[in-house]
């Protein structure tokens, strides 16, 4: 009893420690309240979000990570963005461009193989090379590009993104922001009378007036440029705060020509950027407070969501779940060697905690996005993991053999790792394409089909467990085999039900939106394959063609079909359901399929050689 308590408390401490450690250290490396700045809502990629999300998305796209290290100091994404806007020269020295491809490294003269990231400043001398390369590459069709060409093109796109982001508030190189705005205002006021009377000619002006006009013209050109290329729009509509047609800084400033007044946020933003420049944290914090107060007053809902999303970004629910799932996996592996009863019990409790965190993350996303859980490939991975773990917990309740806990941890870990890698391609809460914009179908068809995927995986992993444990260990008794078989059978039935209903709902959706029930689209075929395969397994079992082993091997084959349907279809890049071509995913998919075939062939080895059979 005492022993047990100790182990469990150690585990809890471990869990707590993990949870505590991964939460990001407070963002304020200086006395600037960057966290408040990170909360400010902006329009980015068609969606209102806190600056923090815009910063994280952009930094992830450019650098593949959400935080940055420079001279041994960790810099948060929001801090990076703030520096990029206020002191662009300083930010240009941060090594944010990740370059993995050795050939591209060679092209850029990077000979230090340990160094994988370069700064904007280091890239500047190579711009001509990169542009020339890109001009050639753009003429080549996407699929035909070599890895080198793809990498160069991606670098080009990332430089463009960086440039656009940098020029989203003021033109880069601006040093006194407030002065830019106020002198523009003053100049316009001074010339106002002149502008009204149109009879004047440029030649009639005094030298000073000419200078003012030129200066006005320059400013307008600068801000028109900002308006053209910005990717972050910080100014809400003045008429309707809930409207999502926000204005860019550029449009906000040039609008002065029409109504002779500035959007109230413009001066505040200019002042806060100046404050960073002149190292006046108090002034910065005050300006930021006032920006937030403005939003709070006009659109409390937007502010609330921005705060919520910031919290969501900071807590990193899924990252924590990944680590916990991995710990559970380790614990259970250890449990086969030592302290089986205690460790498995601890594992089960830890699984409940991990599942709880996973659930919270999922719910958080649903609320923030106002959408059902699955809206894109990323969220499908999160959801598949969640359902698998949930199913595992239910199985554990009935069978109490801790196998389901182990499988849950493995599946939860793998799916969240997949999700993490998918998240590197940008905003995971991106807006929905027009066709998909239907909460009803997203919550019925998509959710059911995804549950079907998850359960097929659970059955498949039970199969894998059966094969490996039976082959390699003598611990798989006849009784265990029967229990595994019953588990797998139940899950396959469940899977048939959900994949069938989900596929059919998809057909109905297709009938509603494209006018045909079935179009032999690759994704539809993939879903149909899963349905048919589950039906085949059940029929083969019924007619006695397969027994325990056959059933398990068939279930493993289900893994292949599901992965193909889940990812393969997107990789083919055809059909209405494809969301983009992914090279890296293709490699992993192939590898997974190969391992599954290996597992099936191992399972086909004569029972004579199975360790679990030798014992008798």
């Amino acid at each position, binding site marked *: 009893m005492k022993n047990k308590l100790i182990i469990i408390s150690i585990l809890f401490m471990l869990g707590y420690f993990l949870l505590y450690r991964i939460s990001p250290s407070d963002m304020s490396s200086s006395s600037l309240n960057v966290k408040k700045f990170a909360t400010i809502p902006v329009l980015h990629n068609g969606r209102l979000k806190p600056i923090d999300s815009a910063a994280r998305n952009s930094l992830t796209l450019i650098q593949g990570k959400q935080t940055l290290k420079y001279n041994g100091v960790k810099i948060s994404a929001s801090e990076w963005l703030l520096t990029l806007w206020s002191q662009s020269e300083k930010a240009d020295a941060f090594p944010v461009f990740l370059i993995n491809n050795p050939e591209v490294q060679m092209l850029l003269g990077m000979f230090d193989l340990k160094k994988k990231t370069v700064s904007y400043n280091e890239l500047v001398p190579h711009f001509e090379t990169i542009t020339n390369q890109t001009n050639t590459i753009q003429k080549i069709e996407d699929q035909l590009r070599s890895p080198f060409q793809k990498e160069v093109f991606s670098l080009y796109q990332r430089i463009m993104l960086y440039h656009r982001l940098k020029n989203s508030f003021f033109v880069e190189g601006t040093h006194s922001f407030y002065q830019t705005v106020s002198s523009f205002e003053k100049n316009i006021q001074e010339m106002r009378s002149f502008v009204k009377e149109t009879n004047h000619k440029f030649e009639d002006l005094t030298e000073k007036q000419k200078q003012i006009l030129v200066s006005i013209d320059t400013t307008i050109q600068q801000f028109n440029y900002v308006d053209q290329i910005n990717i972050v729009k910080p100014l809400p509509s003045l008429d309707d705060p809930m409207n999502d047609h926000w204005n860019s800084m550029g449009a906000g400033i040039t609008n002065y020509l029409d109504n002779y007044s500035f959007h109230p946020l413009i001066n505040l933003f200019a002042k806060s950027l100046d404050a960073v420049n002149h190292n006046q944290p108090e002034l910065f914090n005050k300006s930021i407070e006032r920006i937030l107060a403005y939003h709070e007053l006009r659109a409390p809902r937007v502010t609330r969501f921005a705060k919520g999303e910031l919290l969501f970004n900071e807590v990193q629910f899924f990252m924590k779940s990944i680590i916990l799932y991995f710990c559970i996996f380790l614990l259970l592996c250890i449990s086969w060697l030592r302290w089986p009863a205690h460790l498995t019990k601890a594992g089960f409790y830890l699984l409940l905690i991990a599942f709880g965190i996973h659930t919270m993350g999922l719910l958080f996303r649903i609320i923030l996005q106002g959408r059902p859980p699955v809206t894109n490939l990323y969220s499908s991975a999160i959801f598949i993991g969640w359902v698998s773990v949930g199913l595992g917990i239910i199985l554990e309740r009935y069978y109490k053999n801790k196998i389901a806990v182990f499988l849950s941890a493995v599946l939860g870990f793998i799916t969240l790792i997949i999700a993490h890698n998918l998240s590197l391609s940008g905003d995971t809460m*991106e807006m929905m394409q027009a066709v998909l914009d239907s909460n009803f179908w997203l919550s019925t068809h998509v959710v059911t089909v995804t549950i079907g995927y998850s359960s097929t995986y659970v059955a498949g992993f039970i199969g894998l467990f059966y094969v490996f444990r039976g082959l390699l260990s003598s611990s798989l008794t006849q009784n265990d085999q029967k229990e595994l078989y019953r588990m797998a059978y139940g899950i396959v039935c469940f899977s048939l039900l959900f994949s069938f209903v989900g596929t059919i709902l998809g057909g109905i959706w297709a009938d*509603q*939106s494209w006018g045909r*029930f*079935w179009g032999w689209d690759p994704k539809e075929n993939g879903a149909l394959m899963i349905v048919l395969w589950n039906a085949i397994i059940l029929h083969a079992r019924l007619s006695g063609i397969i027994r325990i082993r056959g059933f398990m091997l068939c279930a493993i084959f289900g893994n292949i079909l599901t992965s193909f349907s889940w990812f393969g279809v997107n990789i083919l890049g055809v059909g209405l359901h494809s969301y983009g071509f992914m090279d890296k995913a293709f490699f992993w998919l192939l590898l997974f399929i190969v391992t599954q075939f290996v597992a099936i062939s191992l399972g086909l080895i004569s029972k004579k050689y199975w360790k679990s059979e030798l014992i008798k």
Partner: protein
Amino acid sequence: MGIYLTQKKFFQSFLIFWEAYPNMMIPVFPGGRLLGIILFFNLLSVVYTNKLYTKKKWGLLLVHLGIMTFFIGGGLTSFYAIESQLSIEEGETKNFTEDFRKLELAIIDRTNPDLDTVISIPQSMLKKQNVISYPEIPFNIVIKSYLDNAELSSKTSNHSIQELPQVTHGIGAEIFVKSKAEFVQDNFVNFVTVHAEILSNNKSLGTWLFSRAIEQTQLIEIENKRYEFILRPVRYYTSYDLTLKDFRHDIYPGTDIPKNFSSLIHLNDPEKQEVRDVLIYMNHPLRYQGKTYYQASFGKDDTLSILQVVQNPAWLFPYLACSMVAAGLIFQFLSYLIRFSKKNNR
């Protein structure tokens, strides 16, 4: 091969042929239609031999009957469903839809000022290359050549003499025709081209060229009556008019991601006195008189809307079938769960 042709060859057929030698077709596999019928009877025999109609098995019975209903629905759809498109510009009014995958040679008689008489000769008939005669028209058409796809260009002296029939009349006399292989991809247009001789009272009036690539009608005077000829996509006329009042293509602010496509259509049915405006947008089609109009595509700088039009008398079958199968599966699964938890509780 595009999805359309694949479906046609493998699913909407009884047998799948293999062209071993040119013009020698050997059936090698059963096509979708034949398979459907076989599977239907297979299921029927399963129901009979396994006595699925007994009380205990009614969940399974429902599943199998549901799947049979699917096959019936699928069969009916493959025979009776008509797919076409309505490609309409803002301000335009149309009372027909078109199937861009099938062609017809339309002969239009405009002598009656109130009503044009249209005689349409389907593509399949042109392809057979024989003499075509209709009681409504006082002449015969002899198809002298039929090309699945061709390239048309203006004639220059450089072009060598072609093996195709000589075009004597109409716009085709100025055109050089080169036969081309048929496209099988979905998004390519095949310029079907036909050389046709017109015979009136067994006297040749000349040879004309009709092609998908020639978009205007050709006027031919036969026995003092003028007819307009054109090879065009098959038209399905409706008893009502549709006018596109407005097409909208919204994007999410600051991105290129489409948020919504919608067509505001004015429906005018003089027969039924039904006059109203309808908004067709994603997931919200217009169902009217057995036809369903879906927002499918757009063009011409967002002033042209393309609606997919489906007429499928069997559209309810899948709904019926899937409710049957789903109910059967849920019943089976629940009874399994109940048995299972009873066993566990013991």
